[in-house]
């Protein structure tokens, strides 16, 4: 077939992503010569506009980077800022001892975001690829019940976000030091019945998506994820990485978050797109559900580990198309963890700890639904932001996405343009790329041959 030789596959506007991107694959003489994921979201310059702002403001401002995972931005910012704060009279030089109730609420809020974001991605953005629909609305024509179940699951995630955060998108109740107002036990307990339903629905979802047909692709990416110290969470919490942990990798890295800049950096490539994440040794790496699961499967409760085992999802999972199964398993975990945290919740004695800043550089990282989100702030003695750096998951994953596309297209050159294009789009959606999240967006102004 002649089309295996010289082809150019271009998708100018990728669908079912959060944000705007395009994909270009160049094939010459039967070899994939060039793959590009162009992120053409206009730049919004968050790091520049944070300069000079008050140290309490980054959680609200950086939430606006992404409407799908604002809690990730709020809590990565808070981790970084609180590492530079003290409670007056505490006698500590740096860092704040948070009451258990505040730590419970933060992890619980984050579980809610995982539920909302993962259910959106698994059912509404990614499942249509596997079932052969243009989107979830078209899918609903044949699978109404499935889409209704997904909407009901998302709703409980959003309700939990509302109760704790005061709003599902861009929560208003989250602040440095804690919350503006801590919810009462009864407000959380009112959600238990629906969460219990959602847990069962999520278990069914794991079995459903595990039965999908997965295109063949095995990739040996370096995986990077957080990993908390065992038992370091608040009462009720287990230790799968969400809002805390050291940074570890499949190649043996194990560092505290403050050592991040020594091991990772972002490159600004001329051919456009978001900044690309690299390890200092030059290697590309992968963050997100596959990395989290492969590095932390031992941290799942035994019944969820058994469920993963039952559906044949055992670490290491190296086919990126199977990320949908891991996302479904993490959805069960997030609901399960939310139920544990609600059962153990003790409202904090104060909704927020009063804190004052210490001049210096603070680092914070959490596991956004789509992978590690790192923030760094330099704060002045009078409490202003002198500098900010934000490394979102999608810019870290971009080199891995391009590597997957290259590999996949090379192995599937006999496919016609339309199915190959769709499979490539599906490969991009494996990473749930939140392109709005990529912070550093560029227009394509320089073409590279």
């Amino acid at each position, binding site marked *: 077939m002649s089309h295996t030789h010289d082809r150019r596959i271009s998708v100018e506007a990728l669908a079912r992503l959060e944000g705007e991107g395009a994909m270009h694959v160049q094939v010459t003489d039967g070899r994939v010569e060039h793959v590009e994921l162009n992120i053409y979201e206009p*730049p919004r310059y968050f790091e520049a*506009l944070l300069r000079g702002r008050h140290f309490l403001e980054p959680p609200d401002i950086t939430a606006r980077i992404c*409407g799908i995972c*604002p809690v990730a931005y709020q809590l990565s910012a808070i981790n970084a800022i609180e590492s530079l704060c003290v409670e007056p009279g505490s006698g500590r030089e740096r860092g704040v001892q948070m009451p258990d109730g505040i730590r419970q609420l933060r992890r619980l809020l984050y579980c809610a975001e995982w539920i909302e974001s993962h259910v*959106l991605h698994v059912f509404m953005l990614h499942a249509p690829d596997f079932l052969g629909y243009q*989107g979830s609305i*078209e899918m609903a024509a044949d699978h109404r019940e499935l889409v209704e179940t997904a909407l009901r699951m998302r709703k409980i995630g959003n309700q939990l976000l509302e109760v704790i955060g005061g709003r599902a998108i861009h929560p208003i109740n989250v602040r440095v030091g804690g919350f503006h107002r801590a919810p009462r036990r009864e407000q959380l307990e009112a959600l238990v019945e629906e969460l219990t339903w959602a847990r069962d629905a999520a278990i069914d979802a794991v079995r459903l998506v595990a039965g999908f047909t997965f295109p063949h692709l095995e990739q040996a990416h370096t995986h990077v994820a957080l990993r908390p110290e065992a038992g370091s969470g608040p009462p009720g919490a287990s230790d799968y990485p969400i809002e805390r942990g050291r940074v570890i990798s499949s190649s043996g890295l194990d560092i505290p978050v403050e050592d991040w800049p020594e091991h990772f950096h972002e490159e600004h490539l001329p051919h456009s797109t978001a900044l690309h994440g690299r390890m200092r040794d030059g290697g590309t790496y992968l963050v997100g559900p596959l990395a989290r699961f492969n590095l932390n499967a031992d941290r799942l409760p035994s019944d969820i580990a058994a469920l993963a085992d039952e559906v044949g999802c055992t670490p290491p999972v190296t086919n990126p198309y199977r990320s949908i199964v891991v996302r479904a398993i993490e959805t069960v975990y997030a609901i399960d963890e939310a139920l544990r945290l609600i059962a153990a919740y003790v409202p904090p004695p104060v909704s927020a700890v009063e804190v004052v800043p210490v001049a210096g550089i603070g680092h914070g990282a959490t596991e956004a639904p789509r992978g590690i989100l790192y923030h760094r702030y330099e704060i002045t003695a009078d409490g202003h932001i002198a500098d900010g750096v934000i490394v979102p998951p999608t810019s870290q994953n971009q080199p891995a996405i391009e590597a997957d596309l290259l590999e996949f297209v090379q192995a599937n050159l006999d496919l016609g343009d339309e199915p190959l294009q769709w499979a490539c789009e599906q490969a991009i959606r494996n990473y749930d790329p939140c392109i709005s999240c990529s912070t550093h967006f560029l*227009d394509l102004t320089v073409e590279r041959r």
Partner: protein
Amino acid sequence: MTQDIARPKVAVWKFASCDGCQLSLLSAEDELLAIADEVQIAYFLEATREVVEGPYDLSLVEGSITTPDDAERIRHVREISTTLITIGACATAGGIQALRNFGDMDEFRSLVYAQPQYVASLADSTAVAEHVSVDLELRGCPIETSQLVEVINAILAGRKPVTPTHSVCVECKLRGNICVTVAHGTPCLGPVTQAGCGARCPAYDRGCYGCFGPAESPNPRSLSDWLEEQFGVDHPELLRLYRTFNADAPAFRSESRRHEEVAP
């Protein structure tokens, strides 16, 4: 409307934004499938690959205009849309990224990008209405799903949507909130901010931070003077208060400029 009078064609467009406002449509869990039965979702990239060619009966526009290409694209969207509604603070006032309108674009660019020459950006982040005519603005950062559903309902029914333009103070009274400023001295933009959120922040013991933008006929100067006199809120804090997600909305812009001039 040409072919399918029973099912209006709806398109959802994205410019510089976080995706949160269009996500509000997918977050209408109880209404989404019913809406999809009543309208034809003809262009909504966040939800579907399916693209039905324009023209469109209703276009929902998220995001601000920040690049030369987008300034062109919004004109095209206007041309192919019967009704154009902006959704959220970015589309109606330039959004948080409009903070750059108060700074130096070249400096911003070189702070964030190692190779600033690769980046094409307009100097300002602007509201859609500065480029084309807009039929209705939905406020909020993000918009409220209930207001979006109301607007879609109203358009389907051929009536005017109910979106109040009074201040958040009215919503606090309706909700029975204790005034956070009077009771605790917390700076609150409620008196000058448009209703629509149901006074979410004061209900959580927090001052309103103005994410719905200025209410009809606001008097921010009077509010600032009162906060300064009664509670000693200083100019730098007042400046920050007005300069967030609706910083470039005219009433908030002129007030923040005033504090910039007098700030030490």
